[in-house]
């Protein structure tokens, strides 16, 4: 960035916990890390339905939705979020998913339009870098 350029507004990210699972350790760590990296983070809290998540994303005008799912319900939940985003013409919102997602499911989710799937052990740095890069082209 040159000295004269205006600082760009922070990337807006919605971090959501869909499904019945209450294990929010990962979601909270990611939300803090993104915030520490200068992003504007909205954390939905627990037990959000796909409808609630997409409606919050619309209201908060986010560029990125991060979904944390550890219960194995990702194949029921994530495709529904993607479908709702397409229905509402929000296809440019990047969706990233973190949690216990087997490789073959990760492949299927990416084919459905998910920008990235982060499995256990993924570094916070790699997640921050991915989101920055994904938003670069749009800003």
């Amino acid at each position, binding site marked *: 960035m040159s000295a004269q350029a205006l600082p760009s507004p922070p990337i807006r990210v919605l971090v959501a916990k869909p499904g019945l699972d209450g294990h*929010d350790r990962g979601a909270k760590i990611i*939300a803090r890390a993104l915030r520490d990296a200068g992003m504007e983070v909205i954390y939905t809290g627990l037990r959000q339905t796909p409808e609630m998540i997409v409606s919050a994303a619309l209201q908060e005008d986010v560029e990125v939705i991060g979904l944390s799912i550890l219960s194995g319900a990702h194949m029921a939940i994530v495709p529904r979020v993607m479908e709702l985003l397409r229905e509402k013409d929000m296809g440019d919102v990047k969706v990233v998913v973190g949690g216990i997602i087997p490789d073959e499911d990760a492949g299927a989710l990416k084919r459905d339009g998910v920008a990235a799937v982060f499995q256990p052990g993924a570094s916070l740095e790699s997640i921050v870098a991915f989101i920055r890069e994904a938003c670069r082209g749009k800003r």
Partner: protein
Amino acid sequence: MKAAERPFTTISGVPIEPVYGPEHLAGMDAARDLGAPGAFPYTRGIHRDMYRGKLWTMRQFSGFATPEETNRRYHYLLEQGQTGLSVAFDLPTLMGYDADHPLSEGEVGKCGASVSSLEDAEILFRGIPLGEVTVSMTINSPAAVLWAMYLAVAEQQGVEWSRVSGTLQNDILKEYIAQKEYIFPPRPSMRLVTDTIEFGARHVPRFNPISVSGYHIREAGSTAVQELAFTLRDGFEYVDWALERGLSIDEFAPRLSFFFNAHNDFFEEIVKYRAARKIWAYAMRERYGARSERSWKLRFHAQTAGCSLTWQQPYNNVVRTALQAMAAVLGGAQSLHTNSLDEAYALPSEQAVTIALRTQQILAHESGVANTADPLGGSYFVEKRTLETEEAANRYIQQIDQMGGMIAAIEAGFPQAEIAAASYRYQREIETGERTIVGVNRYQSGDQPIELLEIDERAAEHQAAKLAALRRRRSSARVTETLDALKRAAEGAENTMPRLLDAVRAYATLGEICEALRSVFGAYQETPRL
């Protein structure tokens, strides 16, 4: 990394000295601080002969898909020499939803067995003599309902409740603090817990109505001291409520049980268990005036740390689990669950769970650690760290006392914020490489493929079909009548257990019962905080 650059701190960040000696124990009083094994304050264990008299119970937590499939796994585990059962329920069951509820979509049978009615409980325990096998049930918000189902199955088997033994987790406070599987607000939830403690003391005297749990607090990222302090303070809260109900301390305290994590830092875990027994013994005797020795003794189950298992190089998890299990044994656990190597991925396969059970059998029969009580007692390091851990936990306990107790602390978000800060700090340490996780941030190598258990998607259909048939078969009039009676009991002050028993015997479903209670108690929503 040079030796000087490695941090000499425990996994919870406590600094450790290069060597410990008699000068570290200057203020220690052996009678006050240690006692003998089996004697107050039980720092060295609750039994004089410890594992020589009886080995710990090898109790693998297990449950997946349908009750039919889980029942088969139980028979397998018992045939392999497991000595107790421990039921894992799926998320819909834990949250009080039937398998065919819209919010259950995608979740049925994934994290445990699906149980929506007494019929499912009958299947779950088919062929398992409830008068002989002790069963632990990991269920919290709807614990009273599942316990009613369990007692109804015992009735059908012709087993007197006075002979039924086992443990209900039933620790709702740690749900608000850590695991977040709550349905109702804290106070009505505490009333249900108190109902079970009272009912147990009167009618099911060999059952532990509660297992006050630090496990999930630790899994949510707490330090060892936070796990210890929040768990014991939760225990005091249950005691306060039961006393308020009019029970006398020695009537119910002997049946309060505990559940702790066994994490990676070997000695930190051992001193945590030793300090736990000591703090509890003193609190029961002095804070609550318990006279019975049985009230003073803190009995606990331990489970190796699920959050320590790595997705990378999963076979390393066998080693982690063995070390953690050994810490639990050296710390004097009464029962133990060892995690399986594949649990960073999924519920364990039969092969993986067998290795986990064999790990306990090797500890018990080959390692020699069970030959003598508290083999580490008297170690300068262990005794000093036990004292330090006790002091640190007591500081937290006093802080929560000053806030007005655990419910007030939870409402203020205090334990939640302490845990979140600790968990973020730990993750940062891994991120910077300050803390090494083998195979994750150092010594990385290629993948090691493993075979995983897959949960058949048909489990949900199977459960839904069974529920539909049940609803056609049962008497709806009887269901309505028992649910109405339950609601009236919930609105008033009478113990809800007899009404819950009537409702489950009428085959009212878990979802219907929880909905009836929700209509009286309301639902809890946490304010999202980072």
